[in-house]
């Protein structure tokens, strides 16, 4: 079993090794979608890490002491487990392989200490709703081998946050069945970023792509701290319906504090669209392609690089099935009526003219 797998080498067949999130990146690459490059640290690393030095037994032992009624007990055990994991080093071989891959990635871009995003990607083969079983953690702007290794371990230990533990207990998921993989991905130095849906989430209209975006990194849109610009694009006619918001803050990387911060958006950029029409249309094209590849509506995270020229500046960083409308049964909207029945209905109807 490999310790690491480049994204383009692992699609849905490797979900047990790389987790759902990383596998979906592999699938996007197969669908010819531009995805920032990177690799997965597989569940093999997680398993081996736990097995070595009897970590697994210690954790099991600690977990068995939890009194689910007592919040402080969950907290306490969680802290102890995460502390234990932080103190236990990865094996030499694991460290070397991750370090080798990270250096290789950095070399591609000719950047020393290439900034990457480190994200957890949980898997629980036969457990539905696995994404909730592992607390999803993301670290942005991670630089240098040491920090990458540290954040990978933090992602792994996020499986034992109080929330993740309580959730598994409540749902009856066995702790040992949930495994975690970690993605290490080149970060997009985003001029603008956001999310998009391959249908209109407000009314289920399948002929629309709805794009929401803000200046800077996508976190401001995902977390909902700022009103994003909204673009509703017709998949067929490409007509764009825009709602440009007053965008007062954005997420940016602060090189001094070495972290992602919420910054005030400069006044001259607050009221102008964060993406141009040609970028909106290019995103729409990718949205349609992703949806066609998966055969169901998708919820996609995207980012637009600051430096690269259009259209090479556009990247998808994640895609998952849209949950609300897709879960509805595919019932006919028109109620299985013939054209004549519909005509009769129409002929009997009246158009409201005054409220």
């Amino acid at each position, binding site marked *: 079993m490999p310790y690491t797998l480049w994204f383009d080498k692992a699609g849905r067949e490797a979900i047990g090794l790389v987790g759902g999130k990383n596998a979906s990146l592999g699938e996007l690459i197969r669908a010819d979608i531009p995805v920032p490059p990177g690799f997965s640290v597989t569940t093999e690393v997680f398993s081996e890490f736990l097995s070595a030095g009897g970590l697994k037994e210690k954790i099991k032992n600690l977990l068995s002491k939890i009194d689910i009624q007592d919040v402080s007990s969950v907290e306490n055990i969680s802290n102890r487990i995460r502390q234990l994991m932080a103190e236990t080093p990865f094996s030499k071989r694991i460290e070397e392989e991750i370090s080798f891959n990270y250096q290789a990635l950095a070399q591609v871009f000719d950047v020393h200490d290439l900034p990457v995003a480190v994200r957890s990607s949980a898997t629980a083969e036969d457990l539905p709703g696995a994404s909730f079983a592992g607390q999803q953690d993301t670290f942005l702007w991670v630089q240098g081998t040491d920090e990458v290794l540290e954040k990978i371990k933090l992602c792994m230990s996020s499986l034992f946050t109080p929330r993740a533990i309580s959730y598994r207990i409540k749902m009856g998921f066995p702790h040992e069945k949930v495994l975690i993989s970690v993605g290490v991905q080149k970060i997009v130095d985003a001029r603008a970023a956001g999310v998009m849906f391959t249908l209109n989430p407000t009314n289920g209209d*399948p002929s629309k792509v709805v794009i929401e975006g803000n200046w800077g990194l996508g976190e401001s849109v995902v977390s909902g701290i700022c009103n994003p610009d909204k673009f509703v694009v017709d998949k067929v*006619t490409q007509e764009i319906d825009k709602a440009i918001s007053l965008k007062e803050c954005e997420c940016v990387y602060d090189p001094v504090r070495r972290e992602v911060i919420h910054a005030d958006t400069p006044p001259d950029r607050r009221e102008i669209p964060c993406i141009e029409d040609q970028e909106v249309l290019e995103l729409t094209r990718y949205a349609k392609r992703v949806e066609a590849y998966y055969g169901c509506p998708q919820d996609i995270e995207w980012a637009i690089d600051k430096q690269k020229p259009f259209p090479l500046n556009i990247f998808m960083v994640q895609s998952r099935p849209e949950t609300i409308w897709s879960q509805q049964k595919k019932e006919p909207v028109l109620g299985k009526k013939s054209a004549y029945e519909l005509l009769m209905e129409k002929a009997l109807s009246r*158009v409201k003219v005054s409220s």
Partner: protein
Amino acid sequence: MAEKKGFPMPLEVEYPKELEGWEEMYPPMYMFSKDRKEWEEKHFWFHDKIHAPEAMYPLDLIFHEAWQISLSQYTTRVFCIPPAQGIAQRMVGCYMYITPVAPPPPEIIGEKAGLFQKRVFYVFDHYDELWGVWLKKFKALGEEMNNIKVPEEFPKFEPDDTVLPEPKGYYTSYDVIEAWDKLVDMMIKGWQYHFQYLNLAYLAYLLFADICRKLFPGIAESTIGKLVAGAYVQMFRPEEELCRLARLAAAVPAVSKILKSDIPADKKIESLRKTAEGNDWLVEYEKSKDPWFFVSCGSGWFHYEGSWTTKLDIPFGYLKADIERIEKGEKIERDVPSIDKARAELAEEYRKLIKTDEDRKSFDDTYRAVRTIYKYAEDHLFWVEHWFHTIWFDKVREFGRLLVKYGMLKAPDDIYLFNRFEVPLLLEDMATTWALGEGVPSRSQYWQAKAEKRNKILDAAKKWNPIPALGTPPEEVAEPFTVMLWGITTDKVQDWLKGMAVVPAEVTELKGFASSAGVVEGKVRVVKLLEEITKIEEGEILVCPTTNPAWAPVFTKIKASITDIGGLTSHAAIVCREYGVPSVTGTGIATTVLKTGDTVKVDGNTGIVKILKRA
């Protein structure tokens, strides 16, 4: 019933003093009156800016009288659209107002539903064959009208061959009276045919639009229009014939040189007659002329618009421009096959987005039905409003000349100052005077004075700005035309209410229907009267009460169009989509608010017009 929302009641309208006496020009049932006050005040009357944007000449009202009856009876008594009733008309200071009549009682709706099902479903099933029958019947009626003989004069003595060997039994006095009666009868009949399938076509469109909105809640209105619009529409044929003639001429320098010169059209024809090549081209021109140049220079609703057969400078002007464009290597024809292909592809792409087989079937069935029957809505326009009306105007002109010849009127067009019930009085006076013998006076001074007074009233009316609506806005409308053609919706009524209170100079934005996609900025040209259309310059944005397909050639010149009135299938919307020109229709107040030279941004995707700079 909705409470009063701010429009004045019909009898509260105040008229300028100069309009005094306007009422006597129109039939009495066209007046708001105390005896019908209660019923009239319950209804919502709006100025019909689509078909009657201008002050109405009494004889031009005949088309409206005819459609009021015909449109209404098909809805109420023939195809029986269950909750809908007819559309009633009134005159308000020389302008025509209309209202959809309130729905009938529930038991009538029930009775109508049965008849509707039986009759309408049948028509939808047999539409292809029925359209052929209709066209044949209608062309025959037009030919019959064209064959009406209007006497050129009253003879001093009836010629021998009408008396010997056996007296004919009726003479010129009767011929004149009969010819007029026939002419009027045929016009009324033509309009009975006009609505034979039109209500159903609009109903089919509304149904399809509903289905599209259920499947794709955010679909643009302009996209629905594009899906339904036909590329092979006969209303575009006059222009296609011009293109054909321009191509022929461009290939022969001797002909194109004459057609490109700056002399009047009749002089061009004279010059062409002098050469063999010129005559060859004229033979082709004559082939196109009947029926395709029997097309109004305007909407076909007003006698003064003229047609391509009476105002030759219009088609010859288009020909000149077309030849010049051919010589510059430009393409002048609409690319019909690719327009049609684009429509088919558009439909297929939406179809693919439908999630279930059942929905796809309903979509397919309805789309097929609307595509079949909607062709009628587009094609009848040429045959009725253009071809048939042109024949009518030609015949009425003959009566006008006869009345001038015998001193009843000063100018042939003065006949239009008398309504269709009054014209027989003039004709009878003229015929009686002739019959009575020599030295007998007619009431010519009375008729001439009346004509003069009415001309003055109409001139005053043209300067008057009638308010958009009267009476009580209804809560709902079931009448398909009100929504489709006039675009009457809640928003529209609200906008009109707002519009009545606005100071034109303070308005910064207009809202209407997003009728044809695209966004452009530019200077506007406000065209209130049809004659002003020739003033339009390359790259201007046309602002008008409403447009129609006969203006088609100017659509290659303009950047966008904005109208006061008109829904998504109004003539302006159809033409703009065909030409890919952005359009916002039904703004209610564009011609009041905008002045020629103002700079605006027209957004045909959202239906918003922003005023960027005042001239």
